[in-house]
């Protein structure tokens, strides 16, 4: 101990691993984030339940549509007229084509929670410090997390939509069943995945900025559900510009992304996708910049 002032002999240096193959790269960070997602039970449970809920909702929707269609037909047949009064607006075929994306309404809630939980739980448990010591440049770690959650959400969305399509056909029966080649059906299935991927990125940004699971979930739900509802039901009559602006809310824009047909005053499918994508991109960039500067 007393000889501690003498410097250590150079030959005692430990073996060194400085070859270029030994460091951090994006592929490795992706793999690390993938390990993290798949090794916490709650995330796996959320992923499975999202698929179950989305396909289940689609099955219910198909059932409801086929019953409605039967009622219209049985009501219409004895009169011999062109459909009963009050039923003119109901186009059962068009409703049926929307079945693959009908699970979104709850699916997005679960995906939003999953995305918030994935990042905010790292702050809650202190894991974020391990993450950022391993990847001190931070941005690759956060980007990798976004890529993983967006990919998972896309696969869940598109996969559930396709499953829903398959499940719906026997329920709808011979009159209403439709093929993947029907106009707009295949894009709607794929875009159900895109929609959820964008929801995931927006939610993860919210979770990153708030660093709090409960606050993040509440904020995401407010943005996706509550604000659109308030505007449609309470505020839209106050001024003309309010419903105009409401079209640009993420979920309202996203609805156009998965829609089969769009109305003339609404955003087109492309516009809807771009608006929702812009929300995701802006929030992602803000969350990256803030994370870069903030103490962990």
């Amino acid at each position, binding site marked *: 101990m007393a000889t501690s002032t003498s410097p250590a002999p150079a030959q005692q240096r430990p073996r060194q*691993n400085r070859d270029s193959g030994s460091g951090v790269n994006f592929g490795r960070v992706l793999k690390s984030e993938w390990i993290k997602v798949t090794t916490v039970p709650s995330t796996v449970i959320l992923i499975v339940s999202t698929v179950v809920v989305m396909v289940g909702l689609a099955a219910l929707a198909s059932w409801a549509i086929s019953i409605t269609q039967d009622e219209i037909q049985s009501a219409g047949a004895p009169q011999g007229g062109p459909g009963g009064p009050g039923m003119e607006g109901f186009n059962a075929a068009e409703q049926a084509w929307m079945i693959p994306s009908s699970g979104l309404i709850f699916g997005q809630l679960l995906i939003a929670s999953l995305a918030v939980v994935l990042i905010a739980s790292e702050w809650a448990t202190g894991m974020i410090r391990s993450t950022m010591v391993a990847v001190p440049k931070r941005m690759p770690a956060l980007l990798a997390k976004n890529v993983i959650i967006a990919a998972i959400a896309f696969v869940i969305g598109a996969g559930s939509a396709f499953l829903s399509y398959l499940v719906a056909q026997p329920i709808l029966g011979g009159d209403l069943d439709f093929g993947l080649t029907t106009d707009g059906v295949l894009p709607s299935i794929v875009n159900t995945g895109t929609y959820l991927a964008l929801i995931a990125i927006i939610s993860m940004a919210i979770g990153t900025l708030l660093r709090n699971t409960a606050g993040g979930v509440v904020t995401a739900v407010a943005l996706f559900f509550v604000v659109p509802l308030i505007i449609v039901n309470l505020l839209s009559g106050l001024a003309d510009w309010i419903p105009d602006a409401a079209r640009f809310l993420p979920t309202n824009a996203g609805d156009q992304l998965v829609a089969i047909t769009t109305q003339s005053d609404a955003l087109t499918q492309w516009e809807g996708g771009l608006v929702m994508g812009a929300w995701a991109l802006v929030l992602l960039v803000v969350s990256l910049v803030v994370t870069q500067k903030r103490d962990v």
Partner: protein
Amino acid sequence: MIEAQALSKRYGAKTAVDAVSFTVQPGKVTGFLGPNGAGKSTTMRMIVGLDNPSGGRVTVNGRPYAQHGAPLREVGALLDAKAVHTKRSAYNHLRAMAATHGIPNSRVKEVIELTGLGPVAKKRVGGFSLGMGQRLGIAAALLGDPHTVILDEPVNGLDPEGVQWVRHLSKGLAAEGRTVFLSSHLMSEMALTADHLIVIGRGRIIADAPIQSIIDGQGKARVRVRADRPQDLLGSLAGEGVTAQVLEPELVEITGVDPRRIAEIALRERVLVYELTPLQVSLEDAYMELTQTEVEYHSHDLPTADQAAAPLEGR
């Protein structure tokens, strides 16, 4: 090697670390000692880039931590035993950390064995004791076989066997030529483990020296003397800046002069001396002496109602 230059961290009006400069050398265990709230953890967090310094800079092996291509192979850090997702198993946690650097699973298993986590490696970290959490943190620090190891309060929550294990591990790593930087508020542990000490109090470095010189320099030599006529002896020593405490008629403790000098005076004055014992100053005493003006929260014996209601001292 860790080099800090005028490193500062301020939180609002409060300065946690105040322009500290120090170097942690390879090949020995450097202790980072200070009372709670002295700025040890904040300094260590700045070393690995978790906190951005408000001023100054700190480098590891010549570069800021974040600019290393393979940071886990440069520096292994145990900063907070609870920096782990509670629902993940220890094995999967280490696997996820290792994956960022392409460290193979064989190394993950190696550090699990090394830290004695084998029996609990597949269990969720949430159920770990504090000591197990510390072992997992140390396992994570060693994953990349790093040149520099930073351990913040590593013996916290460890049982005596674990404390000894950390001591042997730290010395072993230093003997291999690595830089070992170890923080603690326990001076006794530092006395056994560290070769060199950096003492910090209220964000400032109070001492930075080999451990022996801190013991020698701060605690002045104190000698217990039994003699026939101690008053004569003290009279002759009076001019040499000593202080003395008479414990019994023939027993005094003399501070500020070494035993040889006392024996010389005794010989000259023809005082019979029948005990002359140098009293070793413990590191603990030296530490208290160093930091007594620098602690942020003083404790009092038996505070009165008035004192308890008074605002914190030392602000």
